């Protein structure tokens, strides 16, 4: 479904992705690992056309999206559900209005139906009580839960894209988010999660990619990753032993 064909990308003089090629099927659970600034989030933004590559092609369902206009990309973007780091809730809107936003944009639902749907979604993540709150009144974990529900409010995406979904959260909140991601995935639809928290990546994914210097230096399953001798990966795996032992 998603295919990167020799994609390169840079922010000004800083090269982020270098001749990157890979393919991900829509029912896969993929974790993209790597250090800060290694281009993990950039990959997600390229998938939904928020960024355009300097060279190479990004193909979605066999269709090259690199030259598409914003209007044409609309059809591509509804195939995905993107949850940005920190949730990216609209801070001038209440929790209800945030979740209702895509419903108002995409559906012809009445106010009563919207209210019902929003309550149903928030109930699913235990946040119905917070329906009238403003984003600034929510904790980090609540932010992400609202953002995840908002991202799937109006349509059922084929695939979910999570940008650092558990970063900055306490272990309990991170656990809630991981369970939610797995729960959603079990109902259909794979995901790509970008993270540098290997513990959460191991809980969620069954395929792992490791980015370094704009290239994928590892692409494989859990067992192969655990047996990897690549120094950068060993450093990441070190966090896993700290989590398990500590």
């Amino acid at each position, binding site marked *: 479904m998603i295919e990167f064909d020799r994609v390169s990308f840079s922010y000004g003089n800083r090269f982020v992705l270098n001749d990157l090629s890979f393919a991900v099927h829509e029912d896969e659970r993929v974790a993209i690992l790597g250090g800060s600034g290694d281009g993990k989030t950039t990959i997600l933004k390229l998938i939904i056309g928020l960024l355009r590559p300097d060279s190479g092609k990004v193909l979605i369902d066999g269709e090259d999206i690199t030259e598409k206009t914003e209007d044409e990309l609309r059809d591509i973007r509804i195939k995905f559900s993107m949850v940005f780091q*920190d949730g990216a809730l609209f801070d001038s809107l209440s929790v209800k209005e945030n979740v209702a936003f895509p419903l108002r944009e995409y559906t012809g639902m009445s106010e009563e139906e919207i209210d019902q749907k929003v309550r149903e979604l928030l109930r699913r993540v235990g946040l119905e009580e917070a329906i009238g709150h403003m984003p600034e009144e929510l904790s980090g974990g609540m932010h992400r839960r609202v953002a995840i529900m908002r991202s799937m409010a109006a349509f059922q995406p084929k695939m979910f894209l999570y940008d650092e979904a558990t970063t900055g959260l306490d272990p309990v909140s991170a656990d809630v988010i991981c369970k939610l991601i797995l729960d959603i995935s079990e109902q259909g639809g794979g995901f790509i999660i970008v993270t540098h928290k290997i513990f959460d990546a191991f809980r969620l994914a069954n395929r792992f990619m490791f980015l370094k210097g704009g290239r994928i230096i590892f692409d494989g399953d859990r067992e192969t990753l655990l047996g990897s001798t690549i120094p950068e990966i060993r450093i990441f795996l070190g966090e896993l032993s700290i989590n398990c032992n500590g």
Partner: protein
Amino acid sequence: MQTLEKKIIEFVSDLQDFYLLSFHGLMGVVRRPFYFKDMIEQMDYAGSGSFFIILLISLFIGMALSLQLSAELSRLGMKMYTGKIVGISIIREIGPVLTAMVFAGRVGSGIASELGSMVLGHQVDTFRVFGVDPMKKLVTPRILSALIMLPVLTIIGDCVSLFGAYYIAVFVSHQSGTFFWSSIRDIMIYENVLAGSIKPFIFGYLIACISCYMGLSTKGGAIGLRRTTTRAVVASFIAIIVADFILTRVLLYVLGFSV
């Protein structure tokens, strides 16, 4: 040499982006969907939020101008012209420029920092993910609100300035109130009113476009946001002053004033 070339390319590219934003932002007025609620919110923020500041500043500027002119003209025995000179200055020049500057300082900086913070918080990207054009959702309502509210505020500011000038002329400089208002009536001719009415529309459009552009091109966290806000205000001030000179020159020529 390579750096200079790169800087020129960057400048031209920025200029192109600015023109595109200004054009598409304005064209959003005639293209669906329309975000009326956002426009009303922006009008409220720009209009009612700036109202008392404009009142206060306009009142004192009108009074100061009247004081200065009364003092200078009375030495020449021409105190009776205070109303006429104050009126022309306020309606054609000081009113529109001063209101625009206050508007840029308060509303322009607010637009730039709000949009900048939305960019940094991925809220603008989220709009795009949901298939919402940020140009129509964020830029068009702000341009429209500036196009409507700045002229309204300018008219109110002009009136308050004239009242301030009247107060000084009558109660401090002991001039005839009837003569002051008849002088103001005399200068309320089509040419003066037109010259003073066109400027706020142009200034409002410039302030909104500059502030939106600066806000949407924010990069680099809190420091980037600070830079964005400062640049939006400084660029708006420069644009107002330069546009004012050009407009004054053009309007004087078009309206048949000899220089």
